[in-house]
């Protein structure tokens, strides 16, 4: 295993502890406070589902970029990475609109503990989406010139993990009402 891949897996494991701790805290508080279901009822399931679809699709383009890089096709890998970045931008854009609507409706991070968890968990995840998009742009620029193609797989592993976190955030914040 290369040093880069080992480092990425180490990051992923560290992130499991970070997001795992946050989600475990949310679950135990949610189980202790049944009235949180009333608060969760105000989150928009369709927006959450759309963003889940966007992230799943961006994971597909990321893994296809990895496949292209494995075949030595840097330009194709770069194009697919830019498609993944488009997914990241869409996710963040939709999230911004969603938060604007919720804040305008009076649900802010200080409204109550449910919304504190909501904005903290979704915000931390969105920060990872933005970071992933920026790193992916750097990797894509190099890949288009056939440089550092192994990095396409590394950013892909990170991106799939970001997708994994959302796969659990979606039912916790949008489905369980």
């Amino acid at each position, binding site marked *: 295993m290369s040093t880069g891949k080992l480092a990425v897996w180490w990051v992923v494991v560290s992130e499991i502890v970070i997001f795992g701790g946050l989600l475990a805290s949310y679950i135990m508080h949610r189980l202790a406070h049944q009235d949180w279901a009333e608060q969760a009822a105000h989150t928009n399931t369709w927006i959450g589902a759309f963003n889940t679809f966007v992230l799943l699709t961006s*994971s597909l383009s990321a893994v296809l970029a990895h496949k292209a890089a494995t075949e030595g096709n*840097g330009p194709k890998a770069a194009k697919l990475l830019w498609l993944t970045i488009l997914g990241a931008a869409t996710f963040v854009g939709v999230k911004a609109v969603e938060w604007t609507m919720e804040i305008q409706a009076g649900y802010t991070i200080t409204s109550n503990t449910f919304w504190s968890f909501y904005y903290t968990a979704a915000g931390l995840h969105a920060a990872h989406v933005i970071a992933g998009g920026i790193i992916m742009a750097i990797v894509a620029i190099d890949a288009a010139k056939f440089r550092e*193609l192994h990095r396409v797989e590394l950013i892909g592993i990170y991106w799939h993990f970001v997708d994994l976190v959302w796969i659990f955030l979606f039912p916790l914040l949008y489905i369980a009402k």
Partner: protein
Amino acid sequence: MSEHTHETSEHAPAGDGHGEDHGHINYVRIWVWLVILLAVSVAGPFLEVFWITMVTAFGIACVKAYMVAKNFMHISLEPRFVTYIVVTALVFMLLFFAAVAPDVMNPEGTQWQKPSWIGPPE
């Protein structure tokens, strides 16, 4: 662990010599299944049956996570220790939950009572 992949650059295929045998995986088909499972998890609550909602929400989330980890992250093709460190992190998460949840979920326990300023669980 080797350093040679840092030089895997100019016009060379990516990869570190192992785990690259995933040409047989149909990624589009995996994605289609993931989208179908997403649709089921969204549809589940419309039946308004508690246990169906739980299964379609969290059961399907676990299935989707497994599919992404196995087919997109290729975790099963990585050295065994990768799975071990991932499982270790998940076990620590469960230990954290088991240790803290009783204090969060109960108003009182053996020789302790939750301070009034925290408020009882509803």
